[in-house]
């Protein structure tokens, strides 16, 4: 039996804006298994980032976590609901046992400090080194680990002196500096070229193996999912619509949205007859459609879909779907 490192239960996050309450994610539940790479996929605005940030209460005003639990299983077997922790308590975990890598290296790196200083600081904050000097010294090893050539000199570089791919390696370096148990990577390669993307994904895989860590990978690129993840959570308009292994999701997709999404992506190695598009547009989350949020765009929608919210059901072992057809 796979054992969970994090159980997300009935998580809802709302944003209280002038235009109204944005129900960004609603009743989101899934487990992250220890040692796996779990991909969170879906189109722009479906709630991937909000979900991943809420895991460590990283939601800022006007956002609010209105409901849910995030049960974290420590290596020693003890458990804690992260959402119940004080700000102080969660800060001890964030950047330490649970670390983030964000998409945009520009916003994750401070232009005023050397990369060595920034890696060193991340360690010092969590007491992994006695002072910043020791941190900078250790940063050399970390840069070597993320395959930056000439780390002894690079450690003294400022972010603007590095290429986009190098910067993202530094961001990953900061992420793994404290040997995290769970690494949350939010679109870590979206801003990069394909050859650099391949290198960064390879690096992430290697670090994961080496540290025996768990990775939550957020992406909208189904190719990246197929190549790096073992399991997939598909989101649509703030809801989880399907969960399964990569083979279940790609070869036996159940939810009409997942099926449509897969048919919309051109596969450069496969035969492409005709891409299928999904009619209509993504709903606004202030007044999301009643019942199944996909019903206005679903070719199988019936009366029940417009009224009742479908619940996640396990159809085959490990394969869950939220759709009235099943």
């Amino acid at each position, binding site marked *: 039996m796979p054992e969970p490192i994090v159980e997300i239960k009935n998580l809802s996050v709302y944003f209280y804006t002038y235009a109204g309450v944005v129900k960004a994610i609603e009743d989101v539940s899934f487990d992250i298994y220890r040692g796996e790479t779990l991909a969170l996929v879906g189109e722009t605005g479906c709630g991937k980032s909000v979900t991943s940030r809420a895991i460590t209460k990283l939601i800022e005003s006007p956002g609010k976590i209105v409901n849910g639990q995030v049960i974290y299983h420590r290596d020693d077997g003890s458990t804690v609901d992260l959402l119940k922790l004080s700000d102080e308590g969660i800060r001890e975990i964030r950047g330490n046992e649970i670390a983030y890598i964000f998409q945009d290296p520009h916003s994750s790196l401070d232009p005023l400090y050397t990369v060595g200083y920034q890696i060193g600081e991340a360690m010092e904050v969590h007491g992994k080194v006695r002072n910043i000097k020791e941190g900078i010294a250790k940063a050399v090893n970390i840069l070597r680990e993320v395959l930056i050539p000439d780390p002894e000199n690079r450690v003294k570089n400022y972010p603007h002196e590095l290429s986009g791919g190098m910067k993202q390696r530094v961001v990953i370096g900061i992420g793994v500096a404290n040997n995290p148990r769970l690494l949350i990577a939010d679109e870590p390669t979206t801003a990069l070229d394909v050859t*650099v993307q391949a290198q960064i994904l390879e690096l992430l895989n290697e670090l994961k193996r080496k540290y025996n860590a768990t990775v939550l990978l957020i992406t909208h690129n189904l190719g990246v999912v197929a190549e790096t993840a073992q399991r997939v959570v598909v989101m649509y308009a703030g809801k989880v619509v399907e969960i399964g292994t990569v083979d279940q999701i790609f070869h036996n997709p159940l939810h009409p949205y997942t099926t449509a999404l897969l048919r919309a992506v051109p596969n450069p190695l496969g035969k492409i007859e005709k*891409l299928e598009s999904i009619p209509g547009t993504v709903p606004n989350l202030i007044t999301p459609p009643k019942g199944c949020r996909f019903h206005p765009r679903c070719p199988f929608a019936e009366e029940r879909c417009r009224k009742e919210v479908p619940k996640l059901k396990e159809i085959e072992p490990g394969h869950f779907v939220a759709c009235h057809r099943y």
Partner: protein
Amino acid sequence: MEPVLKVEGLKKYFPVRSLMRTVAWVKAVDGVSFEIMPGETFGLVGESGCGKTTTGRTILRLIEPTEGKITFKGRDVTQLKGKDLLWFRRHAQIMFQDPYSSLDPRQTVFNIIMEPVKFHGIEVDDPEEFVIKLLESVGLNEMHLYRYPHEFSGGQRQRIALAKILALQPDFVVLDEPTSALDVSVQANILNTLKELQRKHGFSYLFISHDLGVVKYMSHRMGVMYLGKLVEVGPAEKIFENPLHPYTQMLLSAIPIPDPELARQKKRMEVKGEPPSPINPPEGCHFHPRCPLAKAGLCDKKEPPLVEVEKDHYVACWLYAKA
């Protein structure tokens, strides 16, 4: 059949200035040649900064070429002036990546589409009906006529941009990453519309993208660019089935495949290094510092010529040419 567009030895160098002096040149496009036939899509792929956009804009004379010949429907584009240049501006169009900045936010959809029509002096009997027809052909309708760009989603804005281009009845359109800012489901929609319009009107496209899957779906023939040069040119099917240039092979091996089974079987090639700067590109074959097959003494000294290896399939690599 005559090509719609013929590009020969196209170069575009940008000056790098320091203290008012030109200290170096960015060789953004460095000797590119290809042809596009009527009704054909020519795909242009390559990584960021390799010169795709510069190629597209230089062809349209949105920026002046440093060197080279561009022939559009039999006429030398670099020599066009006055009325002839206007004729070219009408029949060769461009669609940009960013659906947010390419439409005037203060104009209604109707005005956005009619403005260039009036500018080119194209007679229409009933402007309203004319615009509605155009909107319908890109999947919008008369409800959208008097709305403003901010009321539309990214995909809908790209449709408006497309309707605006259609209004001028061009022969050739440069599509510069027309769907990279869009979600996949919306992208599929736009790509299908582009294909359908091509079938109906016989447009020729220069389709620029860094997404190899999209290029495969759209293109009849394609070119792979690396640091300002075309390294491989040929029918899209052939290049995907049998990539010959080591860079194309690396690109295809790096691209993530949306199918776990195919992904596991995929031939993998180690991806070395990052693309170098086009300011001081490596000598000889630009790709040699990253190429696993580079021959010392040759690849780092002499530039390989573009040679025809099989019918209509060209490669610039010393593995396929005699030194």
